[in-house]
């Protein structure tokens, strides 16, 4: 059992750490304050081949693996969870379904530009009435000759309005329930496709989270992803892997908060000594560190399993469940350890706490993760 990262993985990790320190961290506070999508960072990431980490070389990607990708999201998220999720949604939810289920023509047309970073990806499954109950899709797609006419809306879509390529799910056969859902590749400039409300959120404020509105949007047959009726399966399998990205994001948030906290308790003095000397706080921090280490191993194990082609559904669910809870607990304690200062925006720690919360909710709530794990154990 080798717990060491390979040289390649280490170099990728080092590169992202450096990139994060120089390009991401300096603007993280401003991105959050202005609720601004950091397009300049995405542009830079495109330049260095960072938008297609786990996509094979022949489709314009870097040809690295899922673990490399998880390391990337982790590093970015240590400073800025917004940047982490932009990469995660694009990679796991945008690129991966096309890689796995797309035709060669679709890969050529859509995957290559996304892997190179030319185009940004997004994933539209959630609707006002279909969250955890994802199968209750109300968006409908009706075949008319060579096109599908799609009507409906999606909400809470990450990279909404910024992305060029969306994986959209719609009901082609309402009578068949979840077996009547189909996946489509939708380009942002398709007539009938508009971006609706942009959410104001508690955290990951720089991430664009929007409503998608489809009004008589005509999508050509060639853009059907996979097969009619297989959409739900595609969605679930995609989310299975996507949760590794979110788990990595949560891990990064926790680690970033921990690093700042360790530094702070060494500097802050009360009662004539650094507060890090008080055993009560030391015990708190020992617990935090232990949780982080456990989360890390779970994230890496899930990513490695996927990279090696082994079953990873349960591992990914457990990793996301645990890492997101860890992120929330660690950041909350981190604010506590920073005292009053931690509550102010002078320190990044309050933002990290606000950012952490979403990891327990999106891409499958913690409750959904438990459903997945239970289903696996009890089958």
């Amino acid at each position, binding site marked *: 059992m080798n717990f060491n990262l390979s*040289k*390649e993985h280490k*170099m*990728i990790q080092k*590169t992202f750490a*450096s*990139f994060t320190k120089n390009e991401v961290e300096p603007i993280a506070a401003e991105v959050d304050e202005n609720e601004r999508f950091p397009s300049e960072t995405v542009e830079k990431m495109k*330049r*260095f*081949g*960072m938008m*297609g*980490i786990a996509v094979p*070389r022949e489709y314009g*990607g*870097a*040809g*690295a693996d899922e673990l*490399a990708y998880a390391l990337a999201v982790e590093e970015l998220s240590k400073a800025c969870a917004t940047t982490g999720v932009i990469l995660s949604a694009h990679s796991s939810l945008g690129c991966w379904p096309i890689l796995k289920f797309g035709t060669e023509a679709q890969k050529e047309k859509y995957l290559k530009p996304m892997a190179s970073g030319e185009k940004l990806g997004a994933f539209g499954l959630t609707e006002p009435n279909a969250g955890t109950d994802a199968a209750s899709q109300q968006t409908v797609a009706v075949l008319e000759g060579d096109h599908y006419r799609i009507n409906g809306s999606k909400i809470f879509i990450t990279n909404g309005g910024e992305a060029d390529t969306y994986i959209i799910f719609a009901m082609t056969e309402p009578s068949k329930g979840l077996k009547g859902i189909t996946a489509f590749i939708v380009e942002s400039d398709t007539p009938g496709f508009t971006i609706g409300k942009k959410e104001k959120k508690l955290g990951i404020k720089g991430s664009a989270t929007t409503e998608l509105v489809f009004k008589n949007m005509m999508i050509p047959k060639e853009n059907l992803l996979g097969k009619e009726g297989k959409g739900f399966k595609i969605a679930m399998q995609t989310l299975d892997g996507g949760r590794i990205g979110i788990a990595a994001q949560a891990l990064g948030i926790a680690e970033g908060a921990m690093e700042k906290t360790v530094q702070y308790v060494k500097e802050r003095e009360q009662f004539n000594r650094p507060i890090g000397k008080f055993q009560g706080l030391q015990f708190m921090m020992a617990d935090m560190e232990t949780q982080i280490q456990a989360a890390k191993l779970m994230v890496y194990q899930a990513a490695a399993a996927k990279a090696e082609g082994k079953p990873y559904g349960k591992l990914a669910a457990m990793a996301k469940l645990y890492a997101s809870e860890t992120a929330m607990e660690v950041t909350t304690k981190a604010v506590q350890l920073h005292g009053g200062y931690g509550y102010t925006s002078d320190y990044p720690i309050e933002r990290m706490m606000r950012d952490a919360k979403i990891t327990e909710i999106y891409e499958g709530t913690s409750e959904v993760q438990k459903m997945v794990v239970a289903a696996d154990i009890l089958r």
Partner: protein
Amino acid sequence: MKIIVCIKQVPDTNEVKIDPVKGTLIREGVPSILNPDDKAALEEALRVKDQHPDTHITVMTMGPPQAEEVLIEGVAMGADEGILLSDRAFSGADTWATSNTLAKAIEKIGRYDIIFCGRQAIDGDTAQVGPQIGERLGIPQVSYVEKFYLEEGKIRVHRALEDGYEVIEGQSPILLTTIKELNEARYPSIPGIMRAYREDCIKVWTYEDLDIPSTDIGLDGSPTQVKRSFTPEQKGAGEMLEGTTDEKVGSLVQKLQEKNLI
């Protein structure tokens, strides 16, 4: 165009700490990095390649086996190949012996148009290796390059002075030492990293591979030697200055001057 870039792997001296008890360097946990001035040198070479895609860039370093990492980083940034000069016989070298070794390796490569070197390494801080390679190869040098232009085969650089700069024109073959203000270096690209590790981009040359007398390398080739090393006095607690304002100020100015701070 053929460019050779000499680079060095160094400990990140910003992170180096002194053990307060032993008075020794704590090197554990100190990350090794590509020397910043050298990174600028490589970046400039890569910019030439961006403009002229048929440029060939070799990155070269002399060091222990782990120095391979900076060559990989260089290839991942876009260099075509890396050469590691590694042998116990090379160790203990001062700048003269180091430059001998690097120069011999450059001669073995044969043809080159420009040699880019970083002005100085953050561990040695001597700024001597670049010029001494130039002398050994018998080629002209320009140091402290803060801007570089290549127009129609003509090389034009800005050489930084303390209070300005000189505009200098030269032609190949030439050796240039660069300062980190020259440019902002790119990151290794992810596909580049994968390529650097997957394809056979790094050669290792030992003492056997270079036709060089043993008296020109390593300890034997080093006119200078370290007689002793010590850690500078550590900071104790601070001192509150006493007396009238004039006395306090006088005392302060004197102390700061003694420490060569003003």
